[in-house]
C-alpha cells in the first residue's frame, strides 16, 4: 500500500490547516496508508477536552483518523516545551488515544518511506 505523509506546524483553530489536513487524510485513508507528523505548534492538535464554540473539535477528528489507521506522531521536543509529557510507550495523558509523542527522527523516516508528502502551515 502506498503511503502519504502530512506534516503540520500550526495549532488548531488559529489556522485552518489542521482541518484541511483532516480532509486530506480522510480522503487518503480510503486507499492509502497515512502518516501525520505534528511539529511545532501542531503538537496542540491531539489535546483532550477541546471545546470549540464554532468549529469542529480537531482533537476528536484526529483521534478518528488514528482509529482508522493513520500513524499520528508528535515531535517530543515541541511537545515537552508546550507541556505535553509522554509515557514510556509514547502515549500521553493529555492526548487522545492512538497518538504518540516521538522523536524528530521519525520525520525523515516517514518522508523516506512515502509516495507523497504534503506540508501545511501558515
Amino acid at each position: 500500500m502506498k503511503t502519504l505523509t502530512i506534516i503540520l506546524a500550526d495549532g488548531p483553530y488559529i489556522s485552518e490547516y489542521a482541518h484541511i489536513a483532516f480532509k486530506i487524510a480522510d480522503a487518503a485513508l480510503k486507499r492509502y496508508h497515512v502518516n501525520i507528523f505534528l511539529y511545532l505548534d501542531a503538537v496542540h492538535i491531539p489535546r483532550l477536552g477541546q471545546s470549540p464554540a464554532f468549529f469542529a473539535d480537531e482533537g476528536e477528528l484526529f483521534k478518528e483518523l488514528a482509529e482508522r489507521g493513520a500513524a499520528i506522531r508528535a515531535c517530543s521536543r515541541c511537545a515537552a516545551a508546550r507541556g505535553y509529557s509522554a509515557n514510556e510507550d509514547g502515549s500521553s495523558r493529555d492526548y487522545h488515544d492512538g497518538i504518540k509523542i516521538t522523536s524528530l527522527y521519525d520525520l525523515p523516516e516517514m518522508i523516506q518511506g512515502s509516495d507523497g508528502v504534503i506540508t501545511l502551515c501558515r
Partner: protein
Amino acid sequence: MRSVFYLLDTAPYGSEKAFGLLDAAAVSLGRMEVTVGLYGDGAYLALGDQDSRALAIPNLADILRAYGEIRVLAHEPSVVDRGLFSEGLVETAELVDEEAFLVAMESSDCLILL
C-alpha cells in the same frame, strides 16, 4: 523519497520556524540528500556574526556551520533586496540566482516549508 528541499522563508529568532527547520534538516542527513533553501526573510539566516547568547537561544548560524553536509542555498535576489549582499555571510551558504534556486526545488523529490 531520496532528496528533500527545506524552504525557509521566515527570519530567524523571531519565530521558532528557522530553528525547527534546521533541526529537521539535521536529522534528515544520512537518510536523504538535504538542501536548505533560504528565500525571502529566510535569507537573514545567512548573516555571519550572530551571537544569541543574550537571548539564551542556540546560535542558528553555528548550526548551519556544524552541519556542513547540508547544502545551503541562499536566493540571491532575496539577499540583495535585504541589503545583505555586502555583509559577511555564513561560509557554508551558497549564493545562487533565481534560476538555480528553482531548479534545485524542482529536482528534489520532496519540498517542505515551515
